């Protein structure tokens, strides 16, 4: 068996090299197929690695609690809410919490104006504790203080993007900006944090929580978010369980009812993104791998032509003692080698494409090929070669020696 494979590989290589250009064109379909698969996978995997890094900057020991209304409930006009009372409750009875802050988002993106410049930004009402929870530090001026909150001071801490959009000076502290019709004094400028998945973390305006509450009108309908960071010895799972129990009790939820809130960690968010990216990789990879099948059909085509062309040679080999499996192995291995060589070239090309694309688009993470993808691409190429080599090889092996020898 080994002897047959060895000799067939030798003669297949001779045959492939003898028709260099034709062999290359034959396997071009595989080259393109593997190259596209690898390019897609390397780009999405590079993105996934990048997202992992981005999220670790958020701090892995923080939790976000949000209200959650299932779609079915929403249709009935019911909206779950997290209220300031929930915040108080957690502040009072929650365990393992280092710092906690409410966040009240403006209902919609709000217009921000400075002199003649206007922009739209995300405005959040929060407290001094946000700095620790969100790992958000000021580079100029100061952060929101407790006293700002108590006196509902109209002050704002802005992100770098907002400063640029409004053409504020390098040091915007003590300038006044117009937030949805109210004047706020800028007291601080945040350090830039960059983007996560297209969400610009620097396009943000922070104002004191109480100020935000007073500006948002109808307080009964307010739905806040609660962010908290855990003390060092606390376990995410334990805290989550305790808070869930607290909130379920406070919201009078029966044992059969689902939570009307969600507790998220950045890790969960990251996992969600990872899941999405893996799905995207799989779907695009799947679509692209159809081209591998097309490539396989190309190989089958040329192999069939090659069998016809070499009918006489096959007859000669049979006359001098080649058995069925000798001929079968020769053509099967030739198809597989062709496909595998195409796969190798495609691998290199795909990595090249991925790198070229990722480096030509600014802020795009560098491409990376996981080993499993390379191995899978090679394995699939070989499989395609064998699959589409079977028909031509069987045709060759089943030739009648007399007919084959007589073939002109």
């Amino acid at each position: 068996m080994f002897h047959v494979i060895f000799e067939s590989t030798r003669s297949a290589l001779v045959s492939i090299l003898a028709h260099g250009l034709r062999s290359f064109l034959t396997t071009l379909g595989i080259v393109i197929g593997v190259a596209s698969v690898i390019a897609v996978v390397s780009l999405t995997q590079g993105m996934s690695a990048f997202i992992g890094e981005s999220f670790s900057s958020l701090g892995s020991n923080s939790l976000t609690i949000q209200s959650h209304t299932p779609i079915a409930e929403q249709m009935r006009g019911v909206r779950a809410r997290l209220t300031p009372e929930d915040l108080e409750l957690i502040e009072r009875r929650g365990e393992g919490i280092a710092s906690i802050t409410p966040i009240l988002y403006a209902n919609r993106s709000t217009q921000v104006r400075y002199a003649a410049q206007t922009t739209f930004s995300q405005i959040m009402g929060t407290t001094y504790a946000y700095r620790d929870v969100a790992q958000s530090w000021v580079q100029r001026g100061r952060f929101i203080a407790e006293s700002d909150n108590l006196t509902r001071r109209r002050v704002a801490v802005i992100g770098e993007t907002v400063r640029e959009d409004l053409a504020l000076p390098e040091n915007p502290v003590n300038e006044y900006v117009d937030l949805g019709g109210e004047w706020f004094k800028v007291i601080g400028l945040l350090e830039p944090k960059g983007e996560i998945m297209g969400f610009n973390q620097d396009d943000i305006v922070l104002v004191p929580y109480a100020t935000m509450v007073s500006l948002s009108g109808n307080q009964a309908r307010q739905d806040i978010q609660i962010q908290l960071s855990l003390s060092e010895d606390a376990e995410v799972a334990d805290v989550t369980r305790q808070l869930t129990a607290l909130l379920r009790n406070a919201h009078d939820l029966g044992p059969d009812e689902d939570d009307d809130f969600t507790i998220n960690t950045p890790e969960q968010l990251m996992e969600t993104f990872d899941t999405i990216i893996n799905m995207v990789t799989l779907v695009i990879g799947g679509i692209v791998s159809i081209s591998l099948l097309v490539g396989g059909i190309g190989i089958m085509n040329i192999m069939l032509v090659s069998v016809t062309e070499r009918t006489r040679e096959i007859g000669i080999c049979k006359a001098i003692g080649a058995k069925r499996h000798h001929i079968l192995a020769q053509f099967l291995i030739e198809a597989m080698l062709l496909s595998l060589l195409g796969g190798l070239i495609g691998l290199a090309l795909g990595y090249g494409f991925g790198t070229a694309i990722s480096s030509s688009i600014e802020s795009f993470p560098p491409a990376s090929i996981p080993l499993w993808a390379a191995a899978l691409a090679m394995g699939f190429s070989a499989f395609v070669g064998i699959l589409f080599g079977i028909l031509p090889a069987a045709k060759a092996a089943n030739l009648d020696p007399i007919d084959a020898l007589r073939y002109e």
Partner: protein
Amino acid sequence: MAAKESTGPGENAPLIRLRDIAKHYEMGSQLVRALDGVSVEINRGDWVSFIGSSGSGKSTFLNILGCLDRPTRGQYFLNGAYVEELGPNQLAEIRNREIGFIFQSFNLLPRATALGNVAQPLIYRRIGYRRRREMAREALRRVGLEDRVDHLPNQLSGGQRQRVAIARALVTEPSILLADEPTGNLDSRTSADIMQLFDQLHREGQTLILVTHEEDVAGLGDRVVELLDGKIIRDRRAGEPLA
């Protein structure tokens, strides 16, 4: 080899014994009797020529003798084996071990060198690369082509190609050399050279079977068998005058 010796003849038995061999084809609705009851015996070391015009059944006869085809009827005993009982793989084995083919159109592998062509049958015997090339080189030396080992067939003259083919047939040390119009594609001088080579091989003890339509080629052997319409019509010593 799937030899079967049970009812096999002893040491002095002929190398080849054909009994009442027939080969019938269906062509459309017509039954063609390409061979119709041929019986012949050939001894070890003989040089036998089969002669006949086209349509006499000599090609079919050659195919059966060469184990490329199986008879419709009859018994073919070759060097200890009853060939008609064997399957395709066993026939391939017989062709590899017992028979050396020499064709009118040489039938060399176009992309292999002279050495590669001669070494080819040894692949099917699972002989390693280096040993194979050694044996092939020796066979090429026997036919006087030791200085052409690395030439491709299309770089060789017709006579040289036929010598490569003979070397390929010899390299497996077969019990019979089976030549089909070996000089059909050669000019008369080269033909003479090739026939001389056959003569030399015969004198070294090689069993030779030639199929031809040329009387002067057939006449060089020990024995001439004439075929007509699928039957043997004459079996005579070479040199005997024709009827």
